[in-house]
């Protein structure tokens, strides 16, 4: 996927949220305020376009904490490049969802 891929504002927000450390579906929903029916398909599209990657956590960790398995998402290199381009296009993104680097 080329670094110049143009994302919708919603997709850019989701990418920014994952970049900011909200790395599973529900936390992205909470952070962005988007409904589940929007967030999960959008994350699947981002994954299909290789902007993010997902993996299930180990069963033993979930069992130890007595909760269901989580699926975590992470930005790929192409995803980071696309996010940088999107941040230029949507300057408020970093203010809406600040990362730790922005805080510092």
């Amino acid at each position, binding site marked *: 996927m080329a670094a110049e891929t143009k994302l919708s504002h919603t997709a850019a927000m989701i990418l920014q949220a994952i970049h900011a450390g909200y790395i*599973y579906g529900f936390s992205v929903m909470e952070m962005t305020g988007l409904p589940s029916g929007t967030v999960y398909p959008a994350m699947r599209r981002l994954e299909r376009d290789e902007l993010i990657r997902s993996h299930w956590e180990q*069963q033993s960790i979930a069992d130890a904490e007595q909760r269901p398995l989580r699926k975590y998402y992470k930005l790929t290199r192409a995803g980071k490049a696309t996010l940088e381009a999107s941040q230029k296009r949507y300057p408020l993104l970093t203010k809406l969802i600040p990362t730790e680097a922005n805080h510092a």
Partner: protein
Amino acid sequence: MRIRRFANVAPVHLMLLRSASWLVPGSQRREWSAEWRAELWYVLQRSSTQLSTEPQDKEDAIAFCLGAFKDAFWLRRNNPLPKAHMFFQLDSARQCGIFLAALTAGSLMIALLLPGPRNAILRSPYRDGNHLVLISPDGYLQANSPTIPLEQYEEWKHRTQSIFTDFAFYRPTRSKTQTTGHQTPTLSLALASDNLFDLLNIPISSLELNEARTEHRPALLLSQTAWHRYFGGDAQIIGRVLEIAGQRATVVAIVSDDSWRLPNHIDAWLLEDESRLAALPPNSLGYILGHVTKAASAHETSGQFHMLAPAKGGYDGFDCVSLAKRIRQPFSVFLFALMLACLALPATTPLPLGDYPTTSKSSFSRTRRRRWIFLSIKAALILPLVYCGSLDLAYLNPTMNPVSSEYIQLLASFSGLLFSFRWALRDQRRRCPVCLRVLTNPARVGQPSRNFLGWNGTELICGKGHGLLHVPEISTSWFSTQRWLYLDPSWHSLFHESYLPTSTTF
């Protein structure tokens, strides 16, 4: 990945998520189901830690679960290989043929499994069906209940006949009997004259029958179903003496279920000799079966006739319908519905299939032959499909009045045939004449207000690049029906073999 159920997840949430997961393509279902369930747990967890009110918790969780449906629909729309969707689109001729064949096989299997439709489909078990008639008084032609008193049978039996050679009588009733399991089920019993099965030409072992006669006991015949249901298929039942209808009767035979096509469902037949039958009240209503002489049946070729018989103070009218005609009746109804559907078809869709220009002589005749073979296959599969389907509907309930069943069959056959033929013609018109695939990418061309100045209608294209179809919006004298335009082979490079319309997102 293991999917576990957690305590705070309510059954209604799980049910919603499960329903949504059925909309997800099979290959991705498990993964999506797991992710939704995991995320739902967090939704519920968040609600409980934020001291929110209980209705708010429920609303959040329900909103999340409803969101899963949105995900599922998105997945269906964007599935790169939507197999189920493609199947129902019936794009290729083969898919269409397989789908129709599967439907036909399904309806035929249902018809063979249900007793009513099965009897309507199978051949007549009576070799002499053209000479056997069921007699009913005027106005009771298709009555589903007994209509003739026993005294009428007795009178005809002992009178010299010119039309009939013999009569048989049976009266349906219900009676309890003791089975092998010491139970006393109530059976549908026919009290019948002892020549009933001789007249129907259903063979019964004469050894057991003679034994019963010598012991002056009535003979009892059991239907195959009753034998299995009430006597556990006991192989030693023949020759056993059972108490039924206040008499001790000897079981002499098991009658195959397919052998009985006369009115009323019967579990057992008690064959009474003339003296026992005469002991019944004279006004007991039953059915009379008559065997017509060859000369009389040759005269009445329609299988049905009306007769007058002397009665007190004049003559009574009776209708006689041959068993062959009774058994053929569902097929006759279907043929009538077929004729009506063929007459009504031009009112629902135009009959012409379009103009297909001649290319090289051999390839044109080949494609034309393929098109006609495909249309014939569709029609050949539609006929048994609708016939069996209409029988399934009409004879689903065996206790239903035969007249009602005939009306249901007529209505179901007519509407089924009409809409199926309409679909077959419309489907034929929207297919490529070369590869027989459904044409795609409809495009509106021209303006209705300029119809008489230029061409106005819809253009469709073959996904494999064989040509374009022009369908006029309004028929004119110079463009009355759809026209096919073959594309030159130089166009083929623009088309891909595995052409599939895709939807883009973002």
